[in-house]
Protein backbone atom coordinates (compact mmCIF):
# COMPACT_ATOMS: atom_id res chain seq x y z
CA UNK A 1 0.00 0.00 0.00
CA UNK A 2 1.15 3.49 -0.71
CA UNK A 3 2.47 5.58 2.15
CA UNK A 4 0.52 8.74 2.70
CA UNK A 5 2.88 9.70 5.46
CA UNK A 6 5.70 10.66 3.15
CA UNK A 7 3.55 13.26 1.44
CA UNK A 8 2.35 14.61 4.74
CA UNK A 9 5.89 14.79 6.08
CA UNK A 10 7.02 16.64 2.99
CA UNK A 11 4.16 19.11 3.36
CA UNK A 12 4.97 19.60 7.03
CA UNK A 13 8.58 20.35 6.21
CA UNK A 14 7.59 22.88 3.57
CA UNK A 15 5.24 24.60 5.97
CA UNK A 16 7.95 24.75 8.63
CA UNK A 17 10.57 26.02 6.24
CA UNK A 18 8.44 28.60 4.47
CA UNK A 19 8.61 31.35 7.15
CA UNK A 20 12.38 31.38 6.74
CA UNK A 21 11.98 32.19 3.04
CA UNK A 22 9.20 34.74 3.10
CA UNK A 23 10.62 38.26 3.26
CA UNK A 24 7.73 40.24 4.68
CA UNK A 25 4.13 40.36 5.84
CA UNK A 26 2.82 40.74 2.31
CA UNK A 27 4.13 37.31 1.36
CA UNK A 28 2.85 35.79 4.58
CA UNK A 29 -0.54 37.14 3.64
CA UNK A 30 -0.39 35.39 0.26
CA UNK A 31 0.70 32.16 1.93
CA UNK A 32 -2.21 32.47 4.34
CA UNK A 33 -4.68 32.97 1.53
CA UNK A 34 -3.25 29.96 -0.25
CA UNK A 35 -3.72 27.86 2.86
CA UNK A 36 -7.28 29.07 3.33
CA UNK A 37 -8.20 28.25 -0.25
CA UNK A 38 -6.44 24.91 -0.04
CA UNK A 39 -8.49 23.83 2.96
CA UNK A 40 -11.80 24.88 1.39
CA UNK A 41 -10.83 23.22 -1.86
CA UNK A 42 -9.96 19.97 -0.06
CA UNK A 43 -13.54 19.80 1.15
CA UNK A 44 -14.99 20.81 -2.20
CA UNK A 45 -12.87 18.24 -3.99
CA UNK A 46 -14.43 15.53 -1.86
CA UNK A 47 -17.79 16.53 -3.29
CA UNK A 48 -16.75 17.17 -6.89
CA UNK A 49 -13.76 14.95 -7.43
CA UNK A 50 -14.40 11.94 -5.23
CA UNK A 51 -18.16 11.76 -5.02
CA UNK A 52 -18.55 13.07 -8.55
CA UNK A 53 -21.18 15.66 -7.74
CA UNK A 54 -21.24 19.31 -8.72
CA UNK A 55 -21.34 22.27 -6.38
CA UNK A 56 -21.41 25.70 -7.95
CA UNK A 57 -22.47 27.51 -4.81
CA UNK A 58 -19.85 26.56 -2.27
CA UNK A 59 -18.84 30.13 -1.61
CA UNK A 60 -22.27 30.46 -0.02
CA UNK A 61 -21.19 28.24 2.88
CA UNK A 62 -17.95 30.17 3.14
CA UNK A 63 -20.00 33.35 3.35
CA UNK A 64 -22.23 31.95 6.08
CA UNK A 65 -19.21 31.27 8.24
CA UNK A 66 -17.66 34.61 7.44
CA UNK A 67 -20.76 36.55 8.39
CA UNK A 68 -21.46 34.42 11.45
CA UNK A 69 -18.10 35.42 12.87
CA UNK A 70 -18.92 39.03 12.09
CA UNK A 71 -22.56 39.33 13.08
CA UNK A 72 -22.72 37.21 16.23
CA UNK A 73 -19.92 38.93 18.12
CA UNK A 74 -20.81 42.40 16.79
CA UNK A 75 -24.55 42.45 17.28
CA UNK A 76 -25.05 39.76 19.89
CA UNK A 77 -21.82 39.81 21.85
CA UNK A 78 -21.03 36.17 21.23
CA UNK A 79 -17.44 35.04 21.84
CA UNK A 80 -15.59 34.54 18.55
CA UNK A 81 -15.05 30.79 18.92
CA UNK A 82 -18.74 30.23 19.61
CA UNK A 83 -19.52 32.28 16.53
CA UNK A 84 -17.27 30.08 14.40
CA UNK A 85 -19.01 26.95 15.67
CA UNK A 86 -22.45 28.44 15.23
CA UNK A 87 -21.67 29.40 11.66
CA UNK A 88 -20.32 25.95 10.87
CA UNK A 89 -23.32 24.23 12.42
CA UNK A 90 -25.63 26.60 10.58
CA UNK A 91 -23.95 25.88 7.27
CA UNK A 92 -24.03 22.16 8.00
CA UNK A 93 -27.73 22.30 8.84
CA UNK A 94 -28.48 24.19 5.66
CA UNK A 95 -26.53 21.65 3.64
CA UNK A 96 -28.31 18.84 5.50
CA UNK A 97 -31.72 20.31 4.72
CA UNK A 98 -31.07 21.06 1.10
CA UNK A 99 -29.05 18.02 0.07
CA UNK A 100 -31.73 15.29 -0.11
CA UNK A 101 -33.91 17.05 -2.68
CA UNK A 102 -30.91 18.49 -4.54
CA UNK A 103 -29.03 15.24 -4.96
CA UNK A 104 -32.00 13.55 -6.48
CA UNK A 105 -31.20 15.79 -9.42
CA UNK A 106 -28.55 15.04 -11.97
CA UNK A 107 -26.14 16.91 -14.16
CA UNK A 108 -27.34 20.34 -15.20
CA UNK A 109 -30.24 20.36 -12.80
CA UNK A 110 -27.92 19.66 -9.88
CA UNK A 111 -25.53 22.35 -11.08
CA UNK A 112 -28.40 24.79 -11.32
CA UNK A 113 -29.67 23.97 -7.85
CA UNK A 114 -26.28 24.42 -6.18
CA UNK A 115 -25.70 27.60 -8.15
CA UNK A 116 -29.06 28.92 -7.04
CA UNK A 117 -28.21 28.14 -3.44
CA UNK A 118 -25.03 30.20 -3.59
CA UNK A 119 -26.77 33.08 -5.34
CA UNK A 120 -29.61 33.20 -2.82
CA UNK A 121 -27.20 33.22 0.12
CA UNK A 122 -25.24 35.98 -1.56
CA UNK A 123 -28.38 38.06 -2.11
CA UNK A 124 -29.53 37.62 1.47
CA UNK A 125 -26.15 38.75 2.76
CA UNK A 126 -26.26 41.78 0.49
CA UNK A 127 -29.78 42.80 1.48
CA UNK A 128 -30.04 42.30 5.21
CA UNK A 129 -27.99 45.44 5.71
CA UNK A 130 -29.12 45.95 9.28
CA UNK A 131 -27.16 42.87 10.26
CA UNK A 132 -24.64 42.54 7.49
CA UNK A 133 -23.78 46.08 6.60
CA UNK A 134 -25.15 45.54 3.10
CA UNK A 135 -23.03 45.67 -0.05
CA UNK A 136 -20.37 47.72 1.68
CA UNK A 137 -19.68 44.99 4.17
CA UNK A 138 -18.82 45.09 7.82
CA UNK A 139 -15.89 44.87 10.21
CA UNK A 140 -15.13 41.58 11.92
CA UNK A 141 -14.03 41.33 15.54
CA UNK A 142 -10.73 39.47 15.95
CA UNK A 143 -10.39 35.85 16.95
CA UNK A 144 -9.49 35.08 20.51
CA UNK A 145 -8.82 31.46 21.30
CA UNK A 146 -8.70 30.78 25.02
CA UNK A 147 -7.25 34.23 25.64
CA UNK A 148 -4.77 34.00 22.77
CA UNK A 149 -5.30 36.40 19.92
CA UNK A 150 -3.37 35.83 16.69
CA UNK A 151 -2.13 39.20 15.56
CA UNK A 152 -0.40 39.80 12.29
CA UNK A 153 0.18 37.65 9.25
CA UNK A 154 2.93 35.56 10.76
CA UNK A 155 0.95 34.39 13.77
CA UNK A 156 -2.05 33.59 11.59
CA UNK A 157 0.31 31.65 9.34
CA UNK A 158 1.02 29.12 12.09
CA UNK A 159 -2.68 28.70 12.74
CA UNK A 160 -3.52 28.17 9.08
CA UNK A 161 -0.55 25.86 8.54
CA UNK A 162 -1.67 23.68 11.44
CA UNK A 163 -5.24 23.55 10.19
CA UNK A 164 -4.00 22.73 6.68
CA UNK A 165 -1.82 19.89 7.88
CA UNK A 166 -4.66 18.46 9.92
CA UNK A 167 -7.06 18.77 7.00
CA UNK A 168 -4.75 16.98 4.59
CA UNK A 169 -4.23 14.19 7.11
CA UNK A 170 -7.95 13.83 7.81
CA UNK A 171 -8.79 13.91 4.11
CA UNK A 172 -6.32 11.18 3.24
CA UNK A 173 -7.58 9.05 6.09
CA UNK A 174 -11.11 9.51 4.88
CA UNK A 175 -10.32 8.59 1.30
CA UNK A 176 -8.51 5.41 2.28
CA UNK A 177 -11.26 4.29 4.64
CA UNK A 178 -14.37 2.24 3.88
CA UNK A 179 -16.33 5.51 3.90
CA UNK A 180 -13.97 6.96 1.33
CA UNK A 181 -14.10 3.86 -0.80
CA UNK A 182 -17.88 3.99 -0.81
CA UNK A 183 -17.62 7.60 -1.93
CA UNK A 184 -15.33 6.80 -4.81
CA UNK A 185 -17.45 3.78 -5.68
CA UNK A 186 -20.60 5.83 -5.98
CA UNK A 187 -18.77 8.01 -8.44
CA UNK A 188 -17.72 4.91 -10.36
CA UNK A 189 -21.07 3.14 -10.38
CA UNK A 190 -23.98 4.13 -8.22
CA UNK A 191 -25.93 0.94 -8.74
CA UNK A 192 -22.96 -1.29 -7.98
CA UNK A 193 -22.24 0.55 -4.76
CA UNK A 194 -25.91 0.39 -3.81
CA UNK A 195 -25.90 -3.37 -4.29
CA UNK A 196 -22.87 -3.49 -2.03
CA UNK A 197 -24.91 -1.84 0.68
CA UNK A 198 -23.95 1.79 0.18
CA UNK A 199 -26.86 4.13 0.86
CA UNK A 200 -25.86 6.48 -1.91
CA UNK A 201 -28.15 9.31 -0.88
CA UNK A 202 -26.79 9.33 2.66
CA UNK A 203 -23.19 9.39 1.49
CA UNK A 204 -23.78 12.29 -0.86
CA UNK A 205 -25.51 14.07 1.99
CA UNK A 206 -22.74 13.35 4.46
CA UNK A 207 -19.95 14.58 2.21
CA UNK A 208 -21.88 17.68 1.22
CA UNK A 209 -22.54 18.52 4.87
CA UNK A 210 -18.92 17.86 5.81
CA UNK A 211 -17.58 20.13 3.09
CA UNK A 212 -20.10 22.84 4.00
CA UNK A 213 -18.97 22.61 7.62
CA UNK A 214 -15.32 23.11 6.72
CA UNK A 215 -16.03 25.83 4.18
CA UNK A 216 -17.90 27.72 6.87
CA UNK A 217 -15.11 27.37 9.42
CA UNK A 218 -12.60 28.67 6.91
CA UNK A 219 -14.97 31.50 6.09
CA UNK A 220 -15.06 32.48 9.75
CA UNK A 221 -11.30 32.28 10.19
CA UNK A 222 -10.72 34.26 7.00
CA UNK A 223 -13.11 36.96 8.15
CA UNK A 224 -11.36 37.23 11.49
CA UNK A 225 -7.98 37.25 9.79
CA UNK A 226 -8.81 40.02 7.35
CA UNK A 227 -10.91 41.96 9.83
CA UNK A 228 -13.44 43.01 7.20
CA UNK A 229 -15.86 41.24 4.86
CA UNK A 230 -18.20 42.08 2.01
CA UNK A 231 -20.96 39.94 0.44
CA UNK A 232 -18.56 39.17 -2.41
CA UNK A 233 -17.12 36.35 -0.34
CA UNK A 234 -20.29 34.39 -1.07
CA UNK A 235 -20.79 35.30 -4.71
CA UNK A 236 -20.86 33.22 -7.87
CA UNK A 237 -17.37 34.26 -8.96
CA UNK A 238 -15.87 33.04 -5.71
CA UNK A 239 -17.68 29.72 -6.13
CA UNK A 240 -16.23 29.47 -9.62
CA UNK A 241 -12.75 30.30 -8.35
CA UNK A 242 -13.01 27.40 -5.93
CA UNK A 243 -14.25 25.03 -8.61
CA UNK A 244 -11.41 26.16 -10.88
CA UNK A 245 -8.88 25.28 -8.19
CA UNK A 246 -10.38 21.79 -7.89
CA UNK A 247 -10.46 21.27 -11.60
CA UNK A 248 -7.04 22.66 -12.42
CA UNK A 249 -5.23 21.07 -9.51
CA UNK A 250 -6.81 17.70 -9.94
CA UNK A 251 -10.20 16.25 -9.23
CA UNK A 252 -10.09 13.43 -6.75
CA UNK A 253 -6.57 14.32 -5.73
CA UNK A 254 -5.64 15.59 -2.29
CA UNK A 255 -2.38 17.16 -3.42
CA UNK A 256 -4.10 18.38 -6.54
CA UNK A 257 -6.32 20.49 -4.33
CA UNK A 258 -3.23 22.06 -2.78
CA UNK A 259 -1.58 22.72 -6.13
CA UNK A 260 -4.75 24.22 -7.57
CA UNK A 261 -5.19 26.47 -4.57
CA UNK A 262 -1.59 27.66 -4.60
CA UNK A 263 -1.51 28.42 -8.32
CA UNK A 264 -4.87 30.12 -8.54
CA UNK A 265 -4.35 32.19 -5.41
CA UNK A 266 -1.08 33.46 -6.81
CA UNK A 267 -2.67 34.36 -10.13
CA UNK A 268 -4.86 37.29 -8.99
CA UNK A 269 -1.83 38.65 -7.17
CA UNK A 270 0.07 38.70 -10.41
CA UNK A 271 -2.83 40.33 -12.21
CA UNK A 272 -3.84 42.70 -9.46
CA UNK A 273 -3.59 45.77 -11.64
CA UNK A 274 -5.36 44.21 -14.59
CA UNK A 275 -8.88 43.71 -13.34
CA UNK A 276 -10.56 42.59 -16.50
CA UNK A 277 -7.56 40.43 -17.31
CA UNK A 278 -8.03 38.48 -14.11
CA UNK A 279 -11.48 37.44 -15.28
CA UNK A 280 -10.20 36.60 -18.74
CA UNK A 281 -7.30 34.64 -17.27
CA UNK A 282 -9.55 32.58 -14.99
CA UNK A 283 -11.88 31.90 -17.87
CA UNK A 284 -9.09 30.88 -20.18
CA UNK A 285 -7.50 28.65 -17.55
CA UNK A 286 -10.81 26.94 -16.90
CA UNK A 287 -11.35 26.23 -20.57
CA UNK A 288 -7.82 25.13 -21.39
CA UNK A 289 -7.58 23.03 -18.29
CA UNK A 290 -10.80 21.14 -18.88
CA UNK A 291 -10.07 20.64 -22.57
CA UNK A 292 -6.45 19.57 -22.42
CA UNK A 293 -6.03 18.32 -18.89
CA UNK A 294 -9.46 17.18 -17.77
CA UNK A 295 -8.06 15.25 -14.84
CA UNK A 296 -6.11 18.22 -13.53
CA UNK A 297 -2.42 18.93 -13.08
CA UNK A 298 -1.45 16.49 -10.37
CA UNK A 299 -3.20 13.36 -11.68
CA UNK A 300 -2.01 14.07 -15.23
CA UNK A 301 1.61 14.43 -14.18
CA UNK A 302 1.40 11.53 -11.80
CA UNK A 303 0.10 9.32 -14.59
CA UNK A 304 2.92 10.49 -16.84
CA UNK A 305 5.45 9.64 -14.19
CA UNK A 306 3.87 6.22 -13.82
CA UNK A 307 2.84 6.70 -10.22
CA UNK A 308 -0.67 6.51 -8.84
CA UNK A 309 -2.20 9.84 -7.76
Amino acid at each position, binding site marked *: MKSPHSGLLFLGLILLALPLLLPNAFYFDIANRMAINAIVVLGLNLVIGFAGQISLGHAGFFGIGAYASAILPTHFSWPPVAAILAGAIGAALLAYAIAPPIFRLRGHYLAMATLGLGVVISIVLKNEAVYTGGPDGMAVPPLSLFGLEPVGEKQWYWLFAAVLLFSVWACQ*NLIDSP*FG*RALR*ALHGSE*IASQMAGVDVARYKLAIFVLSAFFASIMGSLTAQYVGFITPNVADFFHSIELVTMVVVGGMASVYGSLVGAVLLTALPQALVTFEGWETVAFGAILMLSMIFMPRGLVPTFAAKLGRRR
Partner: protein
Amino acid sequence: MALLEVSGLSKAFGGVLAIQNVSFSVEPGIVYSVIGPNGAGKTTLFNLITGVYPPDVGLVRIAGESVTGLAPHQLARKGVARTFQNLQICANMTAIENVMLGGHLFLDRNLIKSMLHFPSLRRGEFALRESAIELMRYVGLAAYLESEASAMPYGALKRLEIARALAARPRILFLDEPAAGFNPVETAEIDDLIRKIADSGVTIVLVEHDMKLVMNISDRILVLNYGEKLAEGAAREVRRNPDVIAAYLGKAA
Protein backbone atom coordinates in the same frame (compact mmCIF):
# COMPACT_ATOMS: atom_id res chain seq x y z
CA MET B 1 -38.56 -23.14 3.79
CA ALA B 2 -37.78 -21.54 0.46
CA LEU B 3 -35.00 -19.00 0.59
CA LEU B 4 -36.54 -16.83 -2.11
CA GLU B 5 -40.26 -16.61 -2.77
CA VAL B 6 -41.69 -14.48 -5.54
CA SER B 7 -45.45 -14.25 -5.89
CA GLY B 8 -47.60 -12.46 -8.40
CA LEU B 9 -44.90 -10.06 -9.53
CA SER B 10 -45.96 -7.57 -12.20
CA LYS B 11 -44.34 -4.49 -13.65
CA ALA B 12 -45.38 -2.19 -16.47
CA PHE B 13 -43.28 0.51 -18.09
CA GLY B 14 -45.65 2.98 -19.65
CA GLY B 15 -47.84 0.75 -21.77
CA VAL B 16 -45.46 -2.18 -21.87
CA LEU B 17 -46.22 -5.01 -19.46
CA ALA B 18 -42.68 -6.21 -18.85
CA ILE B 19 -43.46 -8.77 -16.16
CA GLN B 20 -46.87 -10.32 -15.66
CA ASN B 21 -47.90 -12.29 -12.63
CA VAL B 22 -44.66 -14.21 -12.19
CA SER B 23 -44.37 -16.53 -9.21
CA PHE B 24 -41.68 -19.00 -8.25
CA SER B 25 -39.63 -20.09 -5.29
CA VAL B 26 -36.02 -21.03 -4.81
CA GLU B 27 -34.88 -23.57 -2.22
CA PRO B 28 -31.65 -22.85 -0.38
CA GLY B 29 -28.48 -24.27 -1.86
CA ILE B 30 -29.66 -24.85 -5.43
CA VAL B 31 -28.77 -23.28 -8.75
CA TYR B 32 -31.91 -21.77 -10.24
CA SER B 33 -31.81 -20.45 -13.77
CA VAL B 34 -34.11 -18.01 -15.51
CA ILE B 35 -34.15 -18.33 -19.27
CA GLY B 36 -36.22 -17.05 -22.14
CA PRO B 37 -35.94 -15.39 -25.51
CA ASN B 38 -34.61 -11.85 -25.78
CA GLY B 39 -37.03 -9.36 -24.35
CA ALA B 40 -38.73 -11.94 -22.16
CA GLY B 41 -38.12 -9.83 -19.08
CA LYS B 42 -35.32 -11.71 -17.36
CA THR B 43 -33.24 -8.70 -16.38
CA THR B 44 -36.39 -6.81 -15.45
CA LEU B 45 -37.22 -9.66 -13.10
CA PHE B 46 -33.78 -9.41 -11.56
CA ASN B 47 -34.11 -5.68 -11.20
CA LEU B 48 -37.45 -6.08 -9.46
CA ILE B 49 -36.16 -8.61 -6.98
CA THR B 50 -32.92 -6.76 -6.27
CA GLY B 51 -34.63 -3.45 -5.69
CA VAL B 52 -33.54 -1.46 -8.72
CA TYR B 53 -37.18 -0.48 -9.12
CA PRO B 54 -40.27 -1.60 -7.20
CA PRO B 55 -42.90 -3.92 -8.65
CA ASP B 56 -46.37 -2.61 -9.36
CA VAL B 57 -47.94 -5.68 -7.81
CA GLY B 58 -46.61 -8.72 -6.04
CA LEU B 59 -44.43 -9.91 -3.19
CA VAL B 60 -40.85 -10.87 -2.76
CA ARG B 61 -39.80 -12.77 0.36
CA ILE B 62 -36.39 -13.81 1.52
CA ALA B 63 -36.32 -16.54 4.17
CA GLY B 64 -39.91 -15.72 4.90
CA GLU B 65 -39.31 -12.02 5.40
CA SER B 66 -40.98 -9.60 3.01
CA VAL B 67 -38.46 -7.49 1.11
CA THR B 68 -40.77 -6.15 -1.58
CA GLY B 69 -39.85 -2.66 -2.69
CA LEU B 70 -36.74 -2.38 -0.55
CA ALA B 71 -33.89 -0.36 -2.04
CA PRO B 72 -30.76 -2.19 -3.21
CA HIS B 73 -28.65 -1.09 -0.29
CA GLN B 74 -31.28 -2.40 2.09
CA LEU B 75 -31.43 -5.73 0.26
CA ALA B 76 -27.68 -6.03 0.60
CA ARG B 77 -28.22 -6.27 4.33
CA LYS B 78 -30.56 -9.21 3.78
CA GLY B 79 -27.81 -11.19 2.13
CA VAL B 80 -28.57 -10.40 -1.51
CA ALA B 81 -25.75 -9.77 -3.98
CA ARG B 82 -25.73 -9.54 -7.75
CA THR B 83 -23.69 -9.04 -10.86
CA PHE B 84 -24.84 -6.97 -13.81
CA GLN B 85 -25.49 -7.76 -17.43
CA ASN B 86 -23.83 -4.49 -18.44
CA LEU B 87 -20.72 -4.43 -16.30
CA GLN B 88 -20.93 -2.03 -13.39
CA ILE B 89 -17.31 -1.76 -12.47
CA CYS B 90 -15.87 1.26 -10.70
CA ALA B 91 -13.26 2.19 -13.26
CA ASN B 92 -11.87 4.85 -10.98
CA MET B 93 -10.63 2.29 -8.47
CA THR B 94 -8.20 -0.61 -8.46
CA ALA B 95 -9.34 -4.19 -8.96
CA ILE B 96 -8.89 -5.05 -5.33
CA GLU B 97 -10.75 -1.96 -4.18
CA ASN B 98 -13.69 -3.04 -6.32
CA VAL B 99 -13.74 -6.35 -4.47
CA MET B 100 -13.33 -4.64 -1.11
CA LEU B 101 -16.39 -2.57 -1.96
CA GLY B 102 -18.39 -5.77 -1.75
CA GLY B 103 -17.41 -6.13 1.89
CA HIS B 104 -18.60 -2.64 2.67
CA LEU B 105 -21.21 -3.60 5.25
CA PHE B 106 -18.75 -5.52 7.39
CA LEU B 107 -16.64 -2.53 8.27
CA ASP B 108 -16.93 0.48 10.48
CA ARG B 109 -18.02 3.33 8.26
CA ASN B 110 -18.16 6.11 10.80
CA LEU B 111 -17.15 9.41 9.24
CA ILE B 112 -15.32 10.88 12.22
CA LYS B 113 -13.47 7.70 13.01
CA SER B 114 -12.46 7.48 9.38
CA MET B 115 -11.02 10.97 9.34
CA LEU B 116 -9.14 10.42 12.56
CA HIS B 117 -7.68 7.11 11.40
CA PHE B 118 -8.81 5.01 14.36
CA PRO B 119 -6.69 1.88 14.84
CA SER B 120 -9.79 -0.35 14.92
CA LEU B 121 -10.60 0.87 11.42
CA ARG B 122 -7.12 0.12 10.15
CA ARG B 123 -7.31 -3.43 11.44
CA GLY B 124 -10.67 -3.95 9.75
CA GLU B 125 -9.32 -2.55 6.48
CA PHE B 126 -6.35 -4.87 6.62
CA ALA B 127 -8.53 -7.92 7.24
CA LEU B 128 -10.87 -6.95 4.42
CA ARG B 129 -7.96 -6.53 2.06
CA GLU B 130 -6.67 -9.98 2.92
CA SER B 131 -10.01 -11.58 2.25
CA ALA B 132 -10.36 -9.62 -0.99
CA ILE B 133 -7.03 -11.01 -2.16
CA GLU B 134 -8.25 -14.50 -1.34
CA LEU B 135 -11.46 -13.92 -3.24
CA MET B 136 -9.63 -12.73 -6.30
CA ARG B 137 -7.57 -15.92 -6.23
CA TYR B 138 -10.75 -17.92 -5.72
CA VAL B 139 -12.33 -16.56 -8.91
CA GLY B 140 -9.09 -16.93 -10.86
CA LEU B 141 -7.87 -13.35 -10.91
CA ALA B 142 -4.55 -13.81 -9.13
CA ALA B 143 -2.81 -12.15 -12.08
CA TYR B 144 -4.70 -8.91 -11.50
CA LEU B 145 -4.05 -8.34 -7.81
CA GLU B 146 -2.12 -5.14 -8.52
CA SER B 147 -4.21 -3.94 -11.44
CA GLU B 148 -6.37 -0.94 -12.00
CA ALA B 149 -9.90 -2.00 -12.86
CA SER B 150 -9.77 0.12 -16.01
CA ALA B 151 -6.83 -1.91 -17.31
CA MET B 152 -8.54 -5.28 -17.12
CA PRO B 153 -10.06 -7.19 -20.04
CA TYR B 154 -13.76 -7.92 -20.30
CA GLY B 155 -13.57 -11.52 -19.16
CA ALA B 156 -11.58 -10.62 -16.08
CA LEU B 157 -14.03 -7.88 -15.22
CA LYS B 158 -16.93 -10.32 -15.34
CA ARG B 159 -15.09 -12.41 -12.75
CA LEU B 160 -14.26 -9.30 -10.75
CA GLU B 161 -17.95 -8.56 -10.40
CA ILE B 162 -18.46 -12.06 -9.08
CA ALA B 163 -15.64 -11.60 -6.58
CA ARG B 164 -17.19 -8.33 -5.47
CA ALA B 165 -20.55 -9.99 -5.01
CA LEU B 166 -18.99 -12.83 -3.02
CA ALA B 167 -17.22 -10.34 -0.76
CA ALA B 168 -20.63 -9.51 0.59
CA ARG B 169 -20.92 -13.12 1.83
CA PRO B 170 -24.41 -13.37 0.35
CA ARG B 171 -27.03 -15.95 1.10
CA ILE B 172 -28.33 -15.63 -2.40
CA LEU B 173 -26.30 -14.56 -5.42
CA PHE B 174 -27.93 -13.22 -8.57
CA LEU B 175 -25.79 -13.62 -11.68
CA ASP B 176 -27.03 -11.68 -14.70
CA GLU B 177 -25.56 -13.26 -17.82
CA PRO B 178 -22.16 -14.12 -16.35
CA ALA B 179 -21.08 -15.76 -19.60
CA ALA B 180 -22.24 -13.03 -21.98
CA GLY B 181 -19.72 -12.51 -24.72
CA PHE B 182 -17.64 -15.55 -23.74
CA ASN B 183 -16.24 -18.15 -26.10
CA PRO B 184 -16.76 -21.84 -25.26
CA VAL B 185 -13.52 -22.09 -23.29
CA GLU B 186 -14.35 -19.10 -21.15
CA THR B 187 -17.90 -20.35 -20.72
CA ALA B 188 -16.64 -23.67 -19.43
CA GLU B 189 -14.39 -21.86 -16.94
CA ILE B 190 -17.30 -19.79 -15.67
CA ASP B 191 -19.33 -22.98 -15.44
CA ASP B 192 -16.67 -24.40 -13.11
CA LEU B 193 -16.58 -21.25 -11.02
CA ILE B 194 -20.34 -21.16 -10.59
CA ARG B 195 -20.31 -24.81 -9.56
CA LYS B 196 -17.59 -24.09 -7.05
CA ILE B 197 -19.64 -21.27 -5.57
CA ALA B 198 -22.80 -23.38 -5.48
CA ASP B 199 -20.94 -26.22 -3.79
CA SER B 200 -19.83 -23.85 -1.06
CA GLY B 201 -23.46 -23.38 -0.09
CA VAL B 202 -24.43 -20.14 -1.76
CA THR B 203 -27.83 -20.20 -3.44
CA ILE B 204 -27.52 -18.99 -7.01
CA VAL B 205 -30.13 -17.48 -9.30
CA LEU B 206 -28.85 -17.21 -12.82
CA VAL B 207 -29.93 -15.50 -16.02
CA GLU B 208 -28.17 -16.92 -19.02
CA HIS B 209 -28.54 -17.41 -22.75
CA ASP B 210 -25.97 -20.14 -23.16
CA MET B 211 -28.14 -23.28 -23.05
CA LYS B 212 -25.24 -25.65 -22.57
CA LEU B 213 -24.17 -23.79 -19.45
CA VAL B 214 -27.72 -23.60 -18.17
CA MET B 215 -28.42 -27.29 -18.67
CA ASN B 216 -25.09 -28.31 -17.16
CA ILE B 217 -25.41 -26.36 -14.04
CA SER B 218 -29.03 -25.78 -13.11
CA ASP B 219 -31.11 -27.70 -10.66
CA ARG B 220 -34.31 -25.93 -11.63
CA ILE B 221 -35.22 -23.65 -14.49
CA LEU B 222 -37.82 -20.93 -14.96
CA VAL B 223 -38.75 -20.07 -18.51
CA LEU B 224 -40.10 -16.61 -19.22
CA ASN B 225 -41.77 -15.52 -22.43
CA TYR B 226 -43.18 -12.02 -23.00
CA GLY B 227 -42.94 -11.37 -19.29
CA GLU B 228 -44.98 -14.37 -18.27
CA LYS B 229 -44.04 -17.71 -16.79
CA LEU B 230 -44.02 -20.26 -19.56
CA ALA B 231 -42.65 -23.25 -17.69
CA GLU B 232 -40.83 -24.19 -14.52
CA GLY B 233 -39.27 -27.32 -13.20
CA ALA B 234 -36.25 -29.55 -13.12
CA ALA B 235 -33.79 -28.90 -15.93
CA ARG B 236 -34.44 -32.19 -17.74
CA GLU B 237 -38.19 -31.66 -17.85
CA VAL B 238 -38.01 -28.09 -19.03
CA ARG B 239 -35.77 -28.87 -21.97
CA ARG B 240 -38.31 -31.33 -23.28
CA ASN B 241 -41.31 -29.03 -22.78
CA PRO B 242 -42.92 -28.40 -26.20
CA ASP B 243 -44.03 -24.87 -25.31
CA VAL B 244 -40.48 -23.95 -24.37
CA ILE B 245 -39.15 -25.36 -27.61
CA ALA B 246 -41.78 -23.47 -29.56
CA ALA B 247 -40.98 -20.20 -27.82
CA TYR B 248 -37.31 -20.48 -28.73
CA LEU B 249 -37.62 -21.88 -32.20
CA GLY B 250 -40.96 -20.47 -33.25
CA LYS B 251 -44.21 -22.36 -33.66
CA ALA B 252 -44.73 -24.56 -36.67
CA ALA B 253 -47.08 -22.90 -39.13
